[in-house]
């Protein structure tokens, strides 16, 4: 086993999360799910239809993840939620080397249309198709959020204990229109080993039926947003 992998594996929490991610990697295809790419950056574009590849390129521009390369951390989790119509956000949680967490919250300004909505309108009405140019027109609020350690730690304990069947979400018999896309990255700075999972499905009114990881992401999002409210 390579040294980097061994080092990663020594952390019980990381190991548990990796196991969860590995299981999730097998839960492919809730309509459209990519999972289990060994390196955390965006999914390989060649595997995606052009419309999805362009959308993820735009999402990476609007919600940059370069902070992962700049923050000396034990690990970094990135949770990105992309609804069809409104409320796109990204949460980056870094476990500091000396303990504690840093939480950064990216969100569109209140009342903004979703990234996908703006992508559609700009493409159709302004005939601009370059994601770089489109990203320049989308405003994003970025703020560090001071979430109590005990609450973050509690959520981390929960995800480490998630029990997921590899076949639980295997269902190719449905499509979801206007779905919300959930992207989950686990990365260790400077380490090529990481996991990326992407799930897609209903978000509103279906919380009890949602994928366990999606439920966990929704809970973490609610927690961070509670402490991210302006004074």
């Amino acid at each position, binding site marked *: 086993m390579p040294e980097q992998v061994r080092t990663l594996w020594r952390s019980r929490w990381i190991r548990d999360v990796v196991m969860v991610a590995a299981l999730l990697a097998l839960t492919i295809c809730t*309509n*459209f799910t990519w999972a289990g790419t060994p390196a955390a950056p965006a999914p390989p574009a060649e595997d995606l*239809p*052009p*419309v*999805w590849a*362009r*959308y993820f390129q735009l999402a990476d521009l609007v919600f940059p993840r370069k902070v992962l390369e700049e923050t000396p951390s034990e690990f970094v989790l990135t949770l990105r939620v992309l*609804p*069809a*119509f409104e409320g796109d956000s990204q949460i980056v949680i870094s476990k500091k080397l000396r303990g504690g967490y840093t939480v950064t919250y990216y969100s569109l300004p209140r009342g903004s*249309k979703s990234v*996908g*909505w703006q*992508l*559609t*309108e700009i*493409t*159709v009405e302004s005939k601009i198709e370059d994601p770089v140019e489109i990203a320049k027109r989308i405003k994003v609020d970025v703020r560090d959020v001071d979430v109590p350690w005990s609450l973050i730690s509690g959520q981390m304990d929960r995800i480490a204990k998630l029990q997921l069947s590899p076949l639980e979400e295997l269902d*190719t*018999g*449905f*499509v*979801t*229109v*206007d*779905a*919300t*896309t959930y992207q989950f990255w686990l990365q260790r700075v400077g380490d090529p080993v990481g996991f990326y999972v992407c799930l*897609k*499905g*209903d*978000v*509103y*009114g*279906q919380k009890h039926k949602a994928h366990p990881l999606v439920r966990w992401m929704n809970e973490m999002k609610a927690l961070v947003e509670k402490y991210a409210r302006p004074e």
Partner: protein
Amino acid sequence: MRGSWVAPWFGPVTSSNAAYSNSIPVQPNTFAIFHTHPNNRVQYPSNPGDYLYPYGQFLPNYVGTRSGLFVTTPQGTPVMLRPGLDWTKPCK
């Protein structure tokens, strides 16, 4: 819509009853689907959420809004088939 363009079968489907999104059952012979967007949402097919690939194949998705009837294309650009609410009237 199931079967083929030559001999289509239009049938009701179950709904997931979620607000602002919906899971629709499809079968290998489903060749298109249709849904609507409310007035306070995007007036085109949502991007990329309405671009569907069940069974790994592109599935045309017809979206009716007050701005018109649109259909998705694999290129990612929606095509307007009927303007405004004209699509709610029978074809002449």
